[in-house]
């Protein structure tokens, strides 16, 4: 059989060894097809990953490029002195803030003359650039009367159009004259930049401050809503983790398998798929209207998000409990451990990394959730500032990061749009640090085994 299939060449090269009837060097059609399929599949995989990466890069680029301006702000720095007499005289006037504005404009003019610049400007133009400054100045001196007679450096936020001009959003070509800003004002701005009266500084207020009114995008900060989100996450973590883990341990390890537990199981899976706005309206009806918990409070937000997170945590915890080999339970029971000891001493620690992973996913979902917060009054709310004290953090009205971002994005002034992107950067940083913390925790648990 073999001899008959030998080719003359094969005979020449291998004089003694009989040539194989099926050479391993020649790939048959089936093998070629199989290898081609494998190569194709790998190409698909690489393409999928590249597309994913591309989207990620585009997303990261657009977020960062649009969000970065939110972290800088344009300020007008002017130093001047108001004497006691000037203060008294101003307090006697009918339009008191106007008087203070005159001081400001006078000081500005002084600064101009000092640096030898000659740009015509009027009070109206200054108002368009820095807003009505008199109120701020008056407030400052009323609060600190001891500063009268001393030179005081004022750092006032420039208007959002000027801010836009500084970071390239508003240009001479694109702008149209309006009561907010006129082309001639830009000459003044240029001159002020030259004299270093107008500067771009890092906007700490954006990170630490609270939301501002709709007419003051420069003063808006995300700090208060970061705190709101933080307190909500505390509520979610401390309610959903123990409740979720306890429920899953009971269902997985102790509960009898019958129709009732089957029903519960199906319902938990269903709950995980319920749209979050449904939880929102449930929270509104139960927590606010029935239980009379404070509206807009992180406590209520946290409770609603807990309801939303529970199914996620229960499902992932049950999956990780299931993944613990039954031989471990047998081993523990075999040496006379009770079911509870077996579960808590052996099964739970082994399932811990999986439980933590589920919890991270659940918390991350909850952190980014906006819809339920719409219904319990955490959206559109202008946070007045930080809660005073730990308890107040739960009960005082506050916003949350995604709700704050939504609010800003919905506002008319384009400067708020920038803030929304900036807010997303802060949200992502918060999320990232939360996940890193969780990964570190998970590592620690894994290392024990």
């Amino acid at each position, binding site marked *: 059989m073999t001899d008959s299939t030998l080719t003359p060449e094969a005979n020449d090269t291998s004089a003694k060894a009989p040539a194989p009837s099926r050479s391993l060097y020649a790939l048959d059609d089936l093998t070629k097809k199989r290898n081609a399929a494998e190569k194709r599949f790998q190409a698909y995989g690489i393409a999928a990953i590249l597309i994913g990466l591309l989207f990620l890069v585009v997303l990261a680029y657009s977020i960062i490029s649009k969000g970065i301006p939110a972290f800088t702000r344009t300020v007008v720095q002017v130093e001047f002195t108001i004497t006691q007499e000037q203060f008294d005289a101003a307090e006697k006037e009918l339009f008191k803030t106007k008087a203070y504005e005159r001081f400001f404009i006078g000081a500005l003019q002084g600064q101009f003359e000092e640096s030898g610049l000659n740009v015509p400007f009027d009070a109206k133009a200054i108002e368009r650039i820095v807003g009505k400054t008199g109120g701020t100045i008056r407030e400052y001196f009323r609060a600190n009367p001891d500063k009268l007679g001393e030179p005081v450096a004022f750092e006032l936020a420039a208007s959002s159009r000027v801010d836009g001009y500084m970071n390239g959003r508003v240009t001479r070509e694109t702008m149209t004259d309006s009561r907010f800003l006129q082309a001639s004002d830009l000459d003044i701005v240029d001159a002020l930049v030259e004299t270093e009266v107008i500067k771009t500084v890092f906007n700490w207020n954006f990170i630490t401050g609270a939301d501002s009114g709709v007419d003051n995008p420069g003063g808006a900060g995300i700090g208060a809503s970061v705190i709101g989100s933080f307190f909500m996450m505390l509520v979610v973590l401390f309610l959903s983790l123990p409740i979720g883990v306890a429920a899953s341990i009971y269902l997985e390890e102790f509960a*009898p*398998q019958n129709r009732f537990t089957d029903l519960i199981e199906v319902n938990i899976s269903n709950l995980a798929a319920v749209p979050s706005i449904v939880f929102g309206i449930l929270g509104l009806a139960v927590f606010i209207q029935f239980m009379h918990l404070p509206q807009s409070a992180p406590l209520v937000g946290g409770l609603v998000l807990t309801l939303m997170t529970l199914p996620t945590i229960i499902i992932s915890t049950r999956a990780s409990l299931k993944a613990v*080999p039954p*031989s*471990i*339970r*047998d*081993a*523990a*029971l*075999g*040496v*006379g*451990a*009770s*079911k509870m*000891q077996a579960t808590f*001493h*052996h099964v739970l620690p*082994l399932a811990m990394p999986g439980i933590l992973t589920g919890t991270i996913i659940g918390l991350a979902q909850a952190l980014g959730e906006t819809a339920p917060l719409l219904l319990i009054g955490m959206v559109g709310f202008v946070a007045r500032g930080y809660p005073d004290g730990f308890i107040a953090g739960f009960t005082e009205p506050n916003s949350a990061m995604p709700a704050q971002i939504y609010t800003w994005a919905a506002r008319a002034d384009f400067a708020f749009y920038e803030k929304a992107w900036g807010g997303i950067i802060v949200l992502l940083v918060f999320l990232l640090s939360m996940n890193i913390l969780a990964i570190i925790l998970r590592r620690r648990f894994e290392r024990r*085994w």
Partner: protein
Amino acid sequence: MNEMPNIEQATAMTESKISADKVQVYYGDNHAIKDVDIEIQPRSVTAFIGPSGCGKSTFLRTINRMNDTIEFCRVEGSIRIDGEDIYDPKVDPVQLRAKVGMVFQKPNPFPKSIYDNIAYGPRIHGLARNKSELDDIVSSSLQKAGLWDEVKDRLDEPGTGMSGGQQQRLCIARAIAVSPEVILMDEPCSALDPIATAKVEELIDELRENYTIVIVTHSMQQAARVSQRTAFFHLGVLVEEGPTDNIFTNPKDKRTQDYITGRFG
């Protein structure tokens, strides 16, 4: 092997350690064990043999009520250990399992250190009052399991990092550590190579002095090597039970003969 008859005589005289009377086991509607009566002698090795699915492991697991963990499993009849019915409502299965230890088919050490593997049982049963007593229990258990010399310098290494045979002996040491009276072994050597098997068999033979051992095995040679008495199960029925030599050389039942001569199973 020459002294076998002596042991038989000795064990026949003493009262049996475990006595099962008309034991039935049901898995839902499936009648897995039918009418099993057996007397198991103290301080001896009893082997359960039989083809796969014959119910020998199921019956073994009724002796320490491990079947309780299977929800739809039901046991009828009585199993007495030292005259006490272990299925009495007064009996706590956890307490029972401290008295009747178990070694499983696949070595299943806890993913913890060797020390903690042994110390876990004594800890939960409060067998040691302090650290030095616990150390003593750990070292003596490992010594009894013939593992001490191999692991004494690495007690803090994970038990899962040892070889299969060592892991199984660790599991035996773990079972011994809670000072049980009976040790049940469910095919303890089926996942081990011949050398590890020989070591475990040797160990079983030594443990016979202090413990009542019931071993389920697929290997008839193993049953012949380690046991004093052998019980042959087939289709949920205890076909024949008697001194190991008799079962292998002079079986009374046709089915036993067919099985040990390799005609089925």
